[in-house]
């Protein structure tokens, strides 16, 4: 199971990095950190939600795989 999760994160690494660069890297480079709490709230959501989505996708994939195996 751990291998599947690691593989999923590796596979999604390029889209994840692209997303982080544009949503966090560029605003930070432009001084968005000075905005304080609103940017911190945005940054927290942007940091946390994509890994959760990857984990959820992985869990769904594993569940489907198990149910397929159980049927056969």
């Amino acid at each position, binding site marked *: 199971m751990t291998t599947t999760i690691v593989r999923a994160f*590796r*596979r*999604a*690494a*390029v*889209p*994840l*990095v*692209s*997303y982080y*660069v*544009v*949503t966090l890297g*560029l605003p930070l480079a432009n001084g968005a950190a000075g905005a304080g709490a609103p940017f911190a709230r*945005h940054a927290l*959501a*942007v940091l946390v*939600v*994509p890994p959760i*989505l990857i984990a959820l996708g992985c869990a769904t994939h594993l569940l489907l795989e198990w149910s397929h195996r159980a049927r056969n």
Partner: protein
Amino acid sequence: MKSRLFLLGAASLTAWGLKRHYADASPDDLLWILSPTAWLVGVTTGATFAFEPGEGYLSREHLFLIEKSCAGINFMIAAFGMLVYARFHRTGSAMTAARVLGVSLVAAYLTAVVVNAVRIALALWLAAHPLAASAFSAADVHRFEGICVYFGGLVLLYELVRWFDHELVGRPFQGRHAL
């Protein structure tokens, strides 16, 4: 090596140019991306959007404005960078580099229009069906929806490139899975 340097330089310049254009542009300057997006949202949801100069595309019946910040330019830049990176190792000549640059730009534009239209259509639906007794504010829900759709769009686009390489071109994917 020279062609890869050319690709890197040209891609960085293109991304910077897009960002610069977006920073200085009014909604009227962004019609090239706002118009097809508003049209696609209208087709999929049945909502009617009319252009308001200096504002964007407004749906009076839904009280919904597709404005500058809804243009999806940041997503387009992320998709463009990702596509160039996925093809970077395939670049062997100046001609291939130019082709990678052109195809990535067009694909990023088309994906941005489609993914952004999906995001706005979902936002329209969520605005019409607010989550009762939710612990989250409307702004939180909108932010969460935006992250899911944009990140999901990038993952799907990357998977599409991988599928294209494996199934259609018949070559193993040479872009790196991880950085």
